[in-house]
């Protein structure tokens, strides 16, 4: 589904991604872990199409298409979804209107007509239940005045609405208490099928207790330095990143 080949990216002349290689197949959950500043969020941003970053090399093939040639909105319609680490507040734009506009675009892209209003509301209600989102939130402006937990639930709700092929969850666990974490993880798990895939970016092993990955990658200094099964998370939890850092630094020198 997704193939990243030697991807390099920089910001303001500083290279952040120094050659990432990664392949994800339908039905798989990949976790990307790593210390602060290793490039995890940059990778997520580059995949979503944030123009802050300059791609200096490599390729990303998504469902046979060259992802880097597409605009962020086109990537979304092709089936990429980024759940933000810090969801943005959009004053004055209600969640209903926001999702309506987004879903219309996705449907037009698929050659479908916009969903009739009644059907849309029903569909939205169903998806909200998935993340136990408060009904009162739908009239409110997107993320405005939301708590940390509500913002993250809103991300997973949007993911449920748009049914992406590849979801990238950028530190979805940050700022969540254990109850909210369970709700959010539960939502993500319910959305999992054999045809879609996700990339879970996280610092901690905690989230991976709830969203169990098939593969774990450790990102350090812009490169994937270690790949393993879900047991790698526990290993990291016990020993920290120091050993991996040391090894990687040795290799580089």
């Amino acid at each position: 589904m997704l193939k990243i080949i030697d991807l390099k990216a920089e910001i303001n002349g500083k290279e952040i991604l120094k050659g990432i290689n990664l392949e994800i197949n339908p039905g798989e959950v990949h976790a990307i872990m790593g210390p602060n500043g290793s490039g995890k969020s940059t990778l997520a941003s580059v995949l979503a199409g944030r123009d802050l970053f300059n791609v200096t090399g490599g390729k990303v093939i998504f469902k046979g298409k060259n992802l880097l040639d597409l605009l962020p909105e086109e990537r979304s319609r092709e089936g990429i979804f980024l759940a933000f680490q810090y969801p943005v507040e959009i004053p004055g734009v209600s969640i209903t209107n926001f999702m309506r506009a987004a879903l219309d675009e996705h449907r037009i892209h698929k050659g479908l007509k916009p969903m009739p209003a009644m059907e849309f509301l029903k569909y939205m209600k169903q998806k909200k239940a998935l993340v136990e989102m408060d009904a009162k939130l739908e009239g409110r402006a997107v993320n405005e005045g939301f708590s940390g937990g509500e913002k993250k639930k809103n991300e997973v709700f949007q993911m449920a609405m748009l049914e992406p092929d590849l979801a990238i969850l950028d530190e979805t666990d940050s700022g969540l208490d254990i109850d909210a974490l369970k709700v959010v993880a539960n939502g993500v798990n319910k959305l999992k099928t054999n045809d879609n895939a996700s990339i879970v970016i996280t610092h901690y092993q905690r989230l991976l207790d709830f969203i169990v990955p098939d593969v774990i990658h450790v990102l350090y200094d812009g490169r994937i330095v270690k790949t393993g099964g879900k047991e790698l998370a526990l290993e990291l939890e016990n020993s920290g990143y120091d050993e991996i850092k040391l090894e990687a630094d040795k290799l580089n020198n």
Partner: protein
Amino acid sequence: MANYMIQKEKIKDNLLSLYSKENDFLLNKRLKTTLSNIITEKEIPNIKDEEWKKTSLNGIFKHKFEKGKKINVPNEFVNTFSFNDSDADRLVFVNGIFIAEKSKITQKLNNIYVGSLKDGLKTHKEIIKENYCKTDIHKQNFFTAINSMYSENGFFVYVPDNTILENPVHIVNFVHGDNKKVFSQTRNLIVAGKNSIIQLISSYHSLSEDFTLNNVATEFIAGENSSIKYYIFEGEGNLASIINNVSVNQQKGSSFKTNTSMLCGNLVRNEIHVKHEGEHCTTDLQGIYLPDKEQHFDNFLNINHGKPNCKSNQLYKGIIDNKAKAVFLGKVYVAKDAQKTDAAQSNKVLLLTDNAKSFSRPQLEIYADDVSCAHGSTTGQLDKEALFYMKTRGIPEAKAKTLLMTAFIGDVLDKIEISSYKDYVKYLVNKRLKGQKVEGLCTLKICPSC
């Protein structure tokens, strides 16, 4: 310099030459003398005047004006610009001239008057005499002075004590140059009795692609505990300018609210002056302005808190596109005795291009010591983070921008309480923000939204 002086005299001469005699509303002899003196003494406002610093009229007065004539308005246009106001009484003016046959006046009971100011002389002469220039509107500047002296007509609404005007009154103001450069004037008076309730819409439109200047002066006398809601819609053509002055006297316990939508025009200047003459008054002035191309929109709000325990609010939001320029000057004056004044002011502006300009100047002058006065002014661009966020959900950039802009001014438009008018303004604003043509209007080549 000398040249400039001559130029200014020329402009005055040009405008004054359009009128052979003073209007019929100067029923007070002393007023006539006062006006003559003001007109002789006052100069055409220029950028040396504190309140006109950022608004130059030089571009307008490069041209010599003729007086607007009565021109037939096809029903089609009246219908198009009536904003689905089927419940409203409608007064139609062309170049300041009242068109009775296109107007619709149903509210006449209980000595209510809705109609032209000139016709009002027949039945309500004393009330006009008592209230004409009562707000001192004629002392504001040269334009309000010549308007007071020479404007030949306008609308007049009188609602007696304890009376409710059931339906809104929509005053549709057209300008039509008929291939000439035309100057026209309208003079309006609203007298609201004690405990009365009034809703009005004044809308301004062009019927031709001519260079026009419309000098409007409107006085409100808000009686005790009266409630007035006044909506202003400005959608004249790209060559059409308006100098609009609204002056208000508020008596004890009265409420005066305006909601202005500025969508199109060449140079549009709105002044709203409000004076509290009794305690417990409420004033709420809100507006949006969306100048495009090289348009110049200017709002000057001036609230005089002369009495204690009054409340005022100013909320103006602008979205400035292309090379357009917007000016906001919001004054709040709190007199020494006006304790417990509660005044708030906010001006928020979005600049869409590097060439768009916005000048915002809040000005508080406070002489009382127990007051709450807040003001804020922000100028910025569309939130890039929000745009990216929306794009990652599949929404294209243009649509995301429209959503953000619509949301930005949404709270002001939502305050409009006449739903048919609100829907219409929202429709036009939406079209305007999307850069789309308005069906039925754009074909006239005088689209009010672009």
